[in-house]
């Protein structure tokens, strides 16, 4: 593709806005966001409720399209792609949702294997890879459990395993500890740190200051803008 450059940052947003209509009035969830994230970064995004953190993550995760502005992933412009093409780009991105979002009637193993199913991996291979990934997040003995049989922390680890299984270079987490008690939260924080140490690119939205402190770069969002950007 002509607009792809060799040394492009992994993620690059230029003047991205996202406007929602609510009862006829426009809501500017994102308001001119410029952001570059290099490969192998560990970025935390903080901000008040309603400041646009989830919206930003959805745009980066290719789950949502910006109302205007440019979004490049690995140098490729994604704003103008079709729904099918955007699905294909999502395979390069692991997404961990605020509410876990495990499919209720599937086992932990099948939940983790789900991204591989649509990538055309055979049943045997995807079960093997999913089992390995569950072991990686410390849930080898829970693979046949369904959502109802897992604790919140375990569900979140299953969700992380699912985001990792397709070997996506970019991992996006929306409040990974938000719904967990402090002990489970600490386990997840440790897991994310391990993943960052392995060289994965992480962008983590969080209210959890302990988690934010572990990141190497911290962004602050206010009313749809990035109002703080500090590295450590």
């Amino acid at each position, binding site marked *: 593709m002509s607009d792809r450059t060799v040394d492009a940052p992994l993620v690059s947003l230029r003047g991205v806005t996202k406007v929602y209509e609510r009862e006829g009035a426009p809501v500017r969830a994102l308001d001119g966001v410029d952001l570059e994230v290099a490969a192998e970064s560990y970025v935390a995004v903080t901000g008040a409720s309603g400041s646009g953190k989830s919206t930003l993550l*959805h745009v980066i*995760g290719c*789950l*949502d399209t910006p109302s205007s502005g440019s979004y490049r992933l690995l140098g490729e412009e994604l704003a103008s792609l079709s*729904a*099918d093409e955007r*699905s*294909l780009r*999502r*395979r390069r991105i692991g*997404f961990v*949702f605020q*509410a876990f*979002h495990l*499919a209720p*009637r599937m086992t932990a193993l099948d939940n983790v294997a*789900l*991204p591989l*199913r*649509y*990538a055309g991996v055979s*049943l045997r291979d995807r079960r093997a890879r999913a089992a390995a990934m569950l072991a990686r997040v410390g849930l080898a003995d829970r693979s046949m459990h369904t959502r109802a049989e897992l604790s919140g922390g375990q569900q979140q680890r299953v969700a992380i395993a*699912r985001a990792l299984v*397709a070997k996506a270079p970019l991992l996006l987490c929306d409040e990974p500890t938000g719904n967990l008690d402090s002990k489970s939260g600490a386990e997840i924080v440790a897991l994310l740190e391990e993943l960052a140490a392995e060289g994965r690119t992480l962008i983590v939205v969080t209210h959890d200051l302990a988690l934010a402190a572990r990141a190497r770069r911290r962004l602050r969002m206010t009313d749809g803008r990035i109002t703080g950007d500090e590295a450590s």
Partner: protein
Amino acid sequence: MRDAARTLWRELRRDRARAIVSLLGITWGTLAILVLLAFTVGMEELFDERSAGLGDGIAIAWPSRTSKSWQGLPAGRSLAITRDDVLAAGNAVPVLDAISPEFRVQDRIASADAALRVSICGVEPVFARLRTLRPSPGGRFVDARDVAERRRVVFLGDRLALRLFPRGSAVGREVRIGRTPYLVVGVLEQKEQDSDYGGKDEGLAFAPSTTLAAAYGRRFVNDCVFRARDPERQAECTAAVVAALAARLRFDPADRQAVSVWDTTEQQRMLGWIFLGFHVVVGIAGAVTLMAGAVGIAHLMYLMVRRRTAELGLALAVGARPAQLCRELRAQTLLLVGAGGALGAVLAFALVAIAGAGPWTAETGVPRIPLALGVAAVLVLCACAVAASALPARAVSRLDPVMALRN
């Protein structure tokens, strides 16, 4: 495909009653289409067989009286046609398949057991082929040597044979026609016959044309029976036969009254049209039933998509393409329709087999599911599946992953 099937099975079990009702809708529709048409097909075949009982695509011509003057000859002349005239006319018409003169006499026929008055037909060997006169096993029809040597042999209608020889076979036995002894060489195999000219074949006797003409001192035939090679060209063939006779007997070939012709293909064609209409009406009735079934399936699939919204949103979020999900949905619909249709087909074949074995088939014909009907049913079912998956597939392709996950 396996994943689609597994998901379908899981979802169907969640709402068994609706799943079964929807499936049975397709089953019922398939059953209706197949069984109704199987009956009309069987009935058409029965009618065809009955009309072929007189002869398949034949015409019968009787010499009559001229109505126009021709080459100095006055109108109102009675025509008399010899066996040679008929055979010569046959040779002159290339589109002809076969032609046979027919002499008819009334006389007493007697065996040791019974005696009765019947019509005896003097005919050529091809008459058997023209008029669907099949000998029952062990016998034969009049053959070429019988005709050439004027043998006194006779072929009996099945009912006539039974009257004359109530015990045992008639073949090889002797009957007397008038005072003359004849050898029975064959008996008609029982057949359906819906029309005749001068008695059904089951009650007639058939002898060589030459034998009968000599025995009764006849020169002129009563009628002749013929058929075109191509049933579509029967009218042309008839005109050619009349023209050939006109040339030999010197009458105006355009004189429609000189020879009166009964072209049975006309009524066969009419029957064909009537049955075509019948098939179409019945087929539409079946298709409407099937469409109602398809609506049920469409509804079931739509509910399934609605129930699985979050799951489908998740699938999109982890990289499923909308086209992939639509394809899965179509496969699932096809699977459902296929299962319902297969069940309907099994029931239809069973029902048709049972209906085809009963004593009523003499009036209804033997219902049958021809290959073309099976293929058509499969195509209609596929169309139903495509139609039934259209609406739910649209719902899937419009899913937005973020919105879908939110509920």
